């Protein structure tokens, strides 16, 4: 059955390519332009997510292997992420955690749709300095449709264990790719969010293998033996 997809998803999908292609350094620079307007703790968190991402997934890694080939491991965003909170209480209490979701998702190369009042605020803050469509906000009704869309790559959510369980159930019902659920349920210690590996939940990895001898040998190895003397 064809579902009507919210227009925000199409926008987010269209913005993905460009946001991905500008690279992590450029994304970091753009995300940092508005960081000063954040309050103290959220600002630390935003900056920490950015620098953590630069350290962990910033540069392509050249992997060891046979001569005559080059193998490089890099990361990309997974696609469109919904960043939201399913806690009924005041968003402002959880601002640090919410900021972390959005910054981690964005720096990794995803485009973000954020929901709720907080979503609106963060979108107002970030949208002017980011390429169009990279961050958008939606109301709760649209959020519901987005959760059920097969086109999103994942949902980052602040929630309770029970709600996470039922959200997992709901996401698993969808067709298409296995939608990632990145949930944080401990709002005091933020064990998931404030962890250096949090960024890994927002990325997909890519290996590029190049046969560097395609046009002939590289003829450099023999010279190596002469170096020792």
């Amino acid at each position: 059955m064809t579902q009507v997809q919210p227009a925000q998803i199409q926008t987010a999908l269209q913005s993905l390519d460009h946001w991905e292609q500008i690279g992590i350094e450029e994304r970091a620079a753009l995300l940092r332009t508005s960081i000063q307007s954040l309050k103290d703790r959220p600002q630390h968190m935003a900056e920490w997510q950015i620098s953590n991402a630069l350290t962990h997934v910033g540069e392509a890694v050249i992997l060891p292997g046979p001569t005559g080939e080059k193998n490089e491991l890099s990361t990309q965003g997974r696609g469109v992420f919904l960043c939201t909170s399913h806690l009924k209480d005041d968003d402002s209490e959880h601002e640090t955690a919410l900021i972390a979701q959005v910054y981690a998702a964005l720096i990794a190369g995803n485009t973000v749709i954020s929901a709720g009042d907080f979503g609106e605020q963060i979108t107002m803050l970030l949208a002017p300095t980011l390429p169009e469509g990279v961050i958008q906000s939606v109301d709760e009704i649209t959020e519901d449709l987005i959760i059920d869309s097969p086109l999103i790559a994942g949902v980052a959510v602040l929630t309770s264990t029970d709600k996470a369980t039922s959200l997992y159930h709901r996401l698993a019902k969808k067709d298409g790719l296995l939608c990632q659920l990145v949930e944080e349920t401990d709002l005091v210690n933020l064990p998931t969010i404030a962890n250096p590996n949090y960024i890994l939940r927002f990325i997909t990895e890519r290996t590029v293998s190049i046969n560097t001898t395609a046009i002939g040998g590289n003829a450099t190895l023999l010279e190596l033996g002469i170096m020792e003397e």
Partner: protein
Amino acid sequence: MFNAIEVLQPTFIEKPLNELWQLISPLYKADEAAWLKELLPLAKPTESELKNSTDAATKLIEKVRKDDDSMSMIDALLLEYSLDTKEGILLMCLAEALMRVPDKETADAFIKDRLSVADWASHAKGSDSFFVNASTWGLLLTGKIVTMDEAKDGKPANLVNRLVNRVSEPVIRKAMNHAMKIMGHQFVLGRDIKEALSRGKNYREKGYAYSFDMLGEAALTKSDAIKYLRSYEKAVEVVGKDSYKKGPRPTISIKLSALHPRYEVGNEERVMSELFESVKSLLIKARKVNVGITIDAEEADRLELSLHLFEKLYRDDAIKGWGLFGLVIQAYSKRALPVLTWLTALAKEQGDQIPVRLVKGAYWDSEIKLCQQRGVNGYPVYTRKEATDVSYLACAHFLLQEHTRKHIFPQFASHNAHTIATVTSLSQHLGASTTEFEFQRLHGMGDALYDTLIKTSGTDVRIYAPVGNHKDLLPYLVRRLLENGANSSFVHRLIDATYPVSELVGHPVPLLESRKSLSNPYIDLPIRLFEDRKNSYGPNIEIDSEWTPFKAQIDTFMGQDTQWRAYPLVGGKKVETNNTHTITSPYKLTETAGQIDWADAKTVTQAIDLAEAAFPTWSQRPANERADCLDRMADLMEENYAELMALCHREAGKTIQDSIDEVREGVDFCRYYAQQVRSHFAKPVKFKNFLGNEQTLLRQGRGVFACISPWNFPLAIFIGQVSAALAVGNTVIAKPAEQTSLIAVRAIELLLEAGVPGDVIHLLPGDGATVGAPLTSDKRIAGLAFTGSTGTAQLINRTLSNRGVAPIPVIAETGGQNAMIVDSTSLPEQVVRDAVRSAFASAGQRCSALRVMFIQEDIADRVILMIKGAMKEQSVGLPYLHSTDVGPVIDQKAQSMLLDHIKNMTVKGTLIAQSALPEWADKGTFVAPTAFEISSIDLLTEEKFGPIMHVVRYKAKDLDQIVDTINNSGFGLTMGVHSRNETTCARIASRARVGNLYINRDQVGAVVGVQPFGGQGLSGTGPKAGGPHYLHRFAIEKAL
């Protein structure tokens, strides 16, 4: 290893031929230092010999340097664009590809791509040679480069870039093509044999003789092989009529790989019949007109096969008594000397002289690369240039012996003044007359040296000269030249007047002896490819001394009398359930591999109970101890290699090389994860949290992990998932695919032997309903690793989500709709070889296998024709035979699904080709490799897991759209790109949403830790198996 110095005894070659033959193969990857110690005495000069040869070489070089005119164009080119400069390489890249690009747009883009990255301007004034300047594009274009002001215009690279943009592209293209033609002219003596004979006259006047090399790409199809045979026949005919009287008659060199599409050890039967007949017919024609034929040397894998073929031809009545049928021996091969002794004995026995061209060798880089890729634990070639030189002199010493030269006519091919001088003085010392051997050199190279030599010595010099269409030949020659960049360095040092003569005339023996080690310490053996772990080992099945004993071990498990009897393994014990299933061999359904009891729901619960109880202890075990278990497991798999190979054959229908790769991957997974755990999980990790405070984390297992694996990599993926889960401290319930449970049981038995406690790992054979469902419904499952179809992954994920417990990590690796994009700069032979392997190897039953090939329309007709021809040569058959390329598909269900798809595509697309099936194919579950041309990837909605390839043509300008349609399929596993244009490759790479992208190679066979594997979108969740992030997903981090 034999005592090499003994070859100098006349009695050595009196040994029985078979005895001498036995000396060859064991030296394939002999210990380099040990074997060189044997060779050194053979090459070592006495003091007076050393003085003589050094003096002679010095005189020769001094004379060469005095005589300016003798520098050839290629020498000049190499001097200016030495192959260790970026520009030199780029120039060669252009030469290799430009002439074959049929469409202007792609040619222009390619030129722009190459020009934009090099510093051409610095070469524009560097050489006086017309050719070099002609190749310095700026002069050809407009002359503007040299007049531009660098201070004003910035870096030369930018300049050229702007210039290229400014001058109209057709002008540049024309100039480039012109330059390529000039270059072709220099490398190639003539476009056909007539032109070659006529152009060769000047040199023959000078006293040179010729051997015409009809080189080119190896034939991939029967029709190409026939085409090459015709061109050899034509050459024989024309040369036969040559009436030039002075000097020795020209000969012709042939490349066996051009004369048969499957000149490989696996196809020995065809080589010894079909190829034998072709070559024999050529030899008969050549003998009639007395034109000598030389068989060229190729890759090390083919050496033994080439000798078998040579012997059969040489002994044939039609050839016997001729004396002009010879071959080439490569001195960089460790087997060179014993091959020469065998050849000498063969010639002695028959009484006909064999001409032998001794070269240093032309495939050095690929030999090293291949061994590292295959884990062959040794090299067939020496790793130092001076070691090859030592071997060359040792061989020369043998060849010039009085008892040898009666039977062998040595032809010394070298462009090194010192080698030439040493061989000359050796010949004098051994009393060989100048008519008892000759020198050889490559057309366009070493003119300076040999022009001088020919004037001063009475020895004949033969030029081996490439003949053929520039478009076909240049790519081949350029690749050979590039491969030997390091070896050709002598040439440019020779004519570089600033390079001291004394450094050019050093003897290789003292040089090699002065090294700290005889082998090159910078080229590690394949087993030591990785700094932090041992590489897995793979025997080379192309080499008799490697394959024969290995095969004998496998054979002990191949008889029907060997049947495996397996059970679920719970708590380290076999569980009899009486639900017994027989496992048949997919290639012959009447044969069985064994029997297995399936687990039931009760066994599942029992296993989870035990695993849950065992978790705290296992998880508390020091990470290093868990890692040690995995290392032991890796060693045990290698110790049980043969049995695992047999299981791969009999249970999964895997071919020999696939089975080797399977075991290797399993071994690599264990060692890689062991190393990862030691590095990242053994100690608590400290980091600064977002408030700047130091925090400590401990990485631990999560609990009971379920590992559900597929039949297509029944050992590698199975043990990969299990070892990852165990490594970080989880306990594991593993459910192997029901088709391939026997090998999984053996793997778990080995894992128990390796020290993993029985209550930590449990194996539950069965299908989705009996085992999968109860397993994934259990609330205690704390994580899942799954590899299989996208649909099953969704199903399992739903089951897990129905449990009403907190979400758990689901690591799913699923299917793909994998594409390959081929543009018109690519080399068709390479494309076809890689496409056929990517689509049909393992009967297409790899997640990574090629499904849709996109070919730029300008070259599509040619490439499709070649695919057709190459598919005809694919051999479908019994997987345990070396001659088999494609084995069966896994079972009847898979077979009928694939046959339905073929039926369906026959209507929707156009059949390109279908390989033949053996007559008895209905005894197993075979599907013939099949290729269709279709209009769009949109015709394919789901992955078809088998040997079926689809081909789509595209227009160059639509490349971006093509990438979009591939992305839109939703899958994102592998993609292949074939293009010489780096800009194009980078563009595709940046846009394609795939997990593994392969450029200018095949797209299957990812290696653990080297090419971490896994997709995105519908193709999987990540993290990549065999990559640095994988283990983290199996673990939980606790703040301390």
